[in-house]
């Protein structure tokens, strides 16, 4: 288990290095280095360029070679000192990220919970009522909702609840009531996706013979569904809920931009728009880290939930058996003088001698 974890962590770090190299490489290809931006005046670089400009120039100036810029940044990434961003020279990149992340997180957590709360019952219902009205109806609705982009749905919500009824604020981020529309808008597509997944997973389990066996033991339909079918069909869901959460936690560009939420998505778009190399590198690396960590957690959870995988990784009873067989087969060797005749084939008796001790 420890070895497995260590291997996974090494792979995680290698992935992060790869991501940083690709991002940095791409940014070098894009016109507009720090030197260009500095030359074109400080209009794009907010704040007081005089004080912090020197530090930026020191890090990313025209006379600093690209590989050194990269190494400087990476050193900063490891020591949590990524330096100032082009656009916000007073704030360091890590400050910016750590300010925005809680905002995105406070949308992602409720949105994920909402997804689970709605998608699982719908999926189960659709599977149990397969080929009936409840199945067709829910799947039709979900498919339609999935086809509707989240930001359009957000606009719709704004039109109804903010403009029409006036019960919710239109945009901004200054209280819990501001969370409602973005959370619902963010959850709608994951709900559709997850519910269909739950349905498929349930149907797969329902076809298994152990379901019949459980009924043959006299189980109530509800008990069998809950204790056996639902439990087993939830296991593969971890693999899909993990990425859904990661996606939401790293910010959603459209919704955050549309509703004026200062989350990671907005930070990223700003960085991209202004070609803010340090901030882009920082956010990209952070996104990659979140995704990789969640993937790791998903895999670990999976083995916790599914005994088959858990025991594959640390099988105790299998391992003790096999070597015995090896030793046993070796036991033939000490039988002193093994006859020289190489052909002990049972069938090659044509010209064979009977083996004599």
């Amino acid at each position: 288990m420890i070895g497995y974890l260590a291997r996974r962590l090494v792979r995680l770090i290698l992935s992060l290095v790869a991501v940083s190299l690709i991002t940095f490489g791409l940014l070098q290809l894009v016109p507009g280095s720090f030197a260009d931006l500095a030359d074109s005046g400080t209009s794009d670089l907010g704040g007081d360029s005089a004080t912090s400009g020197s530090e930026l120039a020191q890090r990313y100036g025209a006379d600093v070679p690209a590989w050194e810029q990269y190494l400087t940044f990476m050193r900063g990434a490891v020591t949590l000192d990524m330096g100032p961003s082009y656009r916000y020279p007073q704030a360091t990149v890590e400050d910016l990220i750590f300010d925005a992340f809680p905002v995105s997180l406070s949308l992602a957590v409720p949105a994920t919970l909402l997804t689970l709360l709605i998608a699982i019952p719908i999926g189960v219902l659709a599977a149990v009522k397969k080929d009936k009205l409840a199945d067709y109806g829910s799947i039709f609705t979900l498919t339609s909702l999935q086809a509707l982009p989240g930001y359009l749905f957000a606009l719709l919500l704004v039109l109804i609840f903010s403009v029409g009824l006036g019960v919710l604020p239109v945009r901004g981020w200054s209280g819990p009531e501001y969370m409602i529309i973005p959370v619902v808008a963010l959850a709608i597509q994951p709900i559709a996706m997850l519910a269909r997944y739950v349905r498929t997973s349930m149907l797969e389990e329902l076809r298994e013979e152990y379901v019949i066996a459980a009924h043959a033991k006299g189980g109530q339909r509800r008990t069998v569904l809950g204790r056996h079918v639902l439990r087993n069909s939830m296991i593969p869901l971890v693999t899909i809920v993990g990425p859904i959460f990661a996606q939401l936690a790293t910010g959603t560009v459209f919704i955050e931009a549309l509703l004026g939420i200062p989350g990671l998505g907005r930070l990223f778009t700003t960085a991209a728009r202004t070609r803010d190399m340090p901030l882009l590198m920082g956010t990209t690396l952070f996104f990659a880290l979140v995704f990789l960590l969640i993937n790791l957690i998903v895999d670990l959870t999976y083995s916790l939930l599914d005994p088959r995988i858990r025991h594959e990784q640390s099988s105790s009873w299998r391992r003790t058996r096999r070597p015995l067989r090896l030793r046993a087969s070796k036991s033939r060797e000490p039988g002193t003088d093994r006859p020289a005749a190489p052909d002990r084939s049972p069938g090659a008796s044509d010209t064979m001698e009977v083996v004599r001790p």
Partner: protein
Amino acid sequence: MNPVTTSSTTAGASADGPARPLLSVRDLRVAFRSRAGELVPAASLSVDVPANGALAIVGESGSGKTVSMRALLRLLPDSAVVSGEAHFEGQDLLALSESELRRVRGPGIGMIFQNAMSALNPTRTLKVQLTEHLRWHGICDRKEAVRRAVDALDRVGIPEPERRIRMYPFQLSGGMRQRAMIAMSIVAGPRLLIADEPTTALDVTIQRQVLDVLKGLRDDGLAVIMITHDLGVARYLCDDVVVMKDGQMVETATMDGFVAAAEQPYSRRLLDAAPDVDLRAEPSRSRSAAKTTAAEKTGTETTATADDHESRDATDDAAATQNANRPAPVSRKVLVQANDLVKIFHGRGGDVRAVDDVSITIGANETVGVVGESGSGKSTLARLLMRLIEPSAGAVTFDGHDVLAARKAELYGLRRRIQMVFQNPYGSLLPHQTVAANVIEPLRVHKVGTAAERRKRAAELLELVGIPPERASQYPRQFSGGQQQRIAIARALALEPELLVCDEPTSALDVSIQAQILDLLDDLKQRLGLSMLFITHNLAVAQRLCDRVIVMASGHIVEAGPTADIFARPRHPYTKALLAAVLPIRTDPVPWQPAAAVDTHVGELVEVTPRHWVRLPQTESAAGQRHPAM
């Protein structure tokens, strides 16, 4: 049809009044509503099972055995329409309310399934699965339930039940899992067990163990309904038999009466087609021995009576064996020669010697059977011979060519001469190509002939295996399993190979189809002069088809010899145990104990009688040399 009220005299129980049967099924009819709304009949049945009785329902796949039994407990999907009556202890199962029926499922009637791996929930421990229904039915509390579950595991012969009950199904071996499932179905104390092919997926020795568990349960007073296609299994466990075909009852009889004199033509066909091991067969009676000449028999006897083997020098010995092995009608040119083959698979749990130091030869026009339980290395051996996988050590020659040293072109040429038939015909055919295209696929790969010639060849080949040429443009899925296997055989024959490697070619097929395929293979062998390596776990099939049989256990050859010798005079304890575990239909089964103590690894292969090799421990092998006819 008149249901036969079975005589439970043979069961020797039901002293307390056999007047009313435990289960009485009258006019059970099952049909499935198709999407178009039509009713498609699936099964109809009327049977009686007395308390402590045992009824076998036999028939081929699709005959409605499983459907009718599941209909009794109303375990079929909603599309099933069931009518009739099924009285169990005075209640009509088909008229009970859902909650009343639930009280019968489990505590009244237990059910055992074919595949324990799928019938047990893989993510719950045995403890959960063996105790949950005790509490659903309010039979006892959690603690008592665990105690009863441990008892049940103990009763079905699972060692260390206290430890094993905490395990997951996949942590148990196949036979153990099957027994755990039986424990699950008896823990609630049912009076009737419905066993649906409970041993079909198991090796013969494990099958025997599981059947003995069921037999023990019968002795404890349970009644059993056994669904099976294996008449040997049916005979072993049951007093009465019902034959089903296409959803209809064909015949009901007592088991002994059925085997002795089945009335219906279909029943007789089923009996004739069923492969039956004949353990009393003397070499002279067996078909393979019939082919051998008097010269060989004389050779055998000479060796057998030659007490003073010191007097025989090497040349005499060689001459004797040569004499024995060159009977006039069968040419014994060596086609395949494999020496000291080893295949080690490197797995997570350490190295596995799948094939360990195996040497075999296959002569021209000879059929060599490789038998053994699952995991004995049979299939690995076949793949090594064809160099589909690379051996870890050893040598293989095919008609004098070194197969392992062959470079691309040579190997390509050699593979033309060896073809393979697989267990699952549908899986081995290309589903999106017509049957003709499938059959000539090898010709295309090896660039043999023009398109027109290939088409002609396809028609010939299909005719050879008994597929009407006008069906050549149909697709594999439009054929039955047996026909698909014929097509696969036709494809294997397309390149006119010299060696046909058949890996369990009939084990996925029904018995009557199996008999047809075996006849076909036998016929082809005679007509085309094929050599064959025939891998099977079914000893009866091997006895029927093979000239020589090699018995493998955990990667080793434990015994090898002429078929008749092996079956009539097995020498190795493992072979003896394997043969004793087989359930014959017409003869009584041999008393049997699990041969757990047999060590298949020790010893050297020793020729005890000409061409009959046995792996004997060193000490015994010395004795064997002095008394070759022991």
